[in-house]
């Protein structure tokens, strides 16, 4: 991993980069002393936020735009799990391999379904690089890294679909299908989170639902994926002001009980790091 080169490149694209990341500089410095593979592996999610101008990703504005946006994410997930499942020795046989295979099958089905709906309007599959230019060298050789990236993809997917629902307002066929994919991604996210919890270590306290902004145990590097998940206000109502079982609803429960959307721009920045061309 050549982090300094990455920063050089970003500075070229975005001269104000250094000023803006100062709060995060500590996190980057700390990385040097960390040995956890997961932390290193997840770094691209942090860096990718900064590639905004380099990638110039545009948010969808119509139904086909949303479908192609969804298709791009599904291509990413389908290929990721396909490669993971086919890598001998990566995923323990038995239930873990069974679960990842189930998820792979769904993502492959999503790709097929969206391509069918879009017909000749479907975008082509990009060329992915899950090592993100070598940074992720162990993604298909280290099981914990593989699961951490999978969780990041699933939680991102849930947020991504939610963020585009408004464009599909009232569309019986497309909105319903999008919601049907969206809840499957949430089921995946729930299960992957349980798989990580079972692995223990930094993921030992993982829950199937998201608590606050970044509960992954991975570190601040994945903050962009969970930014805003700590929201406790819904439609002007502060959930922590409502009566719970005993006393008010806790902040943790308030954040868990509502998943938040993520803008297309933020999602494309996250996905963009894994897209070679």
């Amino acid at each position, binding site marked *: 991993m050549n982090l300094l080169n990455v920063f050089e490149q970003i500075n070229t694209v975005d001269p104000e980069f250094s000023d803006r990341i100062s709060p995060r500089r500590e996190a980057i410095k700390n990385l040097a002393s960390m040995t956890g593979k997961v932390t290193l592996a997840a770094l691209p999610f942090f860096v990718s936020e900064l590639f905004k101008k380099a990638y110039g990703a545009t948010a969808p504005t119509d139904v086909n735009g949303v479908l192609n946006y969804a298709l791009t994410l599904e291509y990413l997930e389908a290929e990721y799990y396909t490669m993971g499942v086919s890598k001998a020795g990566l995923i323990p046989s038995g239930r873990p391999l069974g679960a990842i295979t189930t998820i792979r099958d769904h993502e492959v089905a999503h790709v097929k*379904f969206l391509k069918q709906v879009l017909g000749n309007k479907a975008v082509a599959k990009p060329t992915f690089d899950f090592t993100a230019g070598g940074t992720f060298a162990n993604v298909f050789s280290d099981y914990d890294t593989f699961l951490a990236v999978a969780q990041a993809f699933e939680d991102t997917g849930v947020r991504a679909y939610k963020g585009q629902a408004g464009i599909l307002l009232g569309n019986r066929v497309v909105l319903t299908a999008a919601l049907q994919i*969206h809840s499957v991604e949430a*089921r995946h996210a729930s299960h992957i989170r349980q798989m990580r919890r079972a692995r223990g270590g930094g993921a030992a306290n993982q829950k199937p639902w998201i608590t606050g902004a970044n509960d992954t145990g991975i570190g601040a590097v994945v903050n962009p994926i969970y930014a805003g998940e700590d929201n406790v206000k819904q439609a002007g109502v502060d959930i922590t002001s*409502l009566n*719970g079982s005993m006393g008010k609803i806790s902040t943790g429960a308030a954040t868990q009980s*509502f998943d938040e959307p993520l803008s297309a721009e933020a999602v494309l920045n996250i996905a963009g790091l894994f897209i070679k061309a």
Partner: protein
Amino acid sequence: MEKITPHNEALPTNDSAIDKKDLRRRDFLKFAGASAASLAILGLSSCSKDDDDGMDHGGKGLYFGSGDIAILNYAYALEQLEAAFYIQLVNNPYSGMTDMEKAFFTDIRDHEIAHREFFKVALGAKAISSLELNLSGINFSSRENVLATAKTFEDLGVSAYNGAGWLIKDPNYLLLAGKIVSVEARHAAWVRDMIDNGSFANMEVVDSNGLDVAKSPTVVLSAAAPFIKSKIDVSDLPTY
């Protein structure tokens, strides 16, 4: 509830007179023929109402309202049911409940209470009152029965939000539904894994296109009917 009688209104004289509501009634009649018994419990009255003024609802049960308000009350009703179930579950843990199960069931209880209270506040004066529920058929001392019921409720909740999404007119309400449904799906997956690890998204709920279940409000309410004692008036609830 008045008796379900054949639809004897005069046929509309032109296409524009066939409003959505008439179409809904016709679908409803078809459905009612198949399961009149369960609908009687709900006190559904759409097929017997001749007035469309939205005013005469006295004595027909808790009125959900129309349009988006009705859909929010529909969600509020389901969240009331889920919250009541998990409150009772946490208060009466089955023997052998693990620490993790206890912790996660408590989390889920709090999520459902948060949803319930949110809808109540958001709906304000338009909120239906608290439903009288019937959970007597659930054996809370049986892990198997509790998990099976939780699975039913969570999968039903997911299918309800998925199926009602396109009926929502206000994008803000749609987003709220989206924020809640994925949490219900996270619950559903966990509960299913507690029953059988790996069944989080099996073929019972995900089809060959990789799509989760979506159900119309009418179908969902019919499934929830055995648990709802209060008479409800969903005559103006958008459905299909």
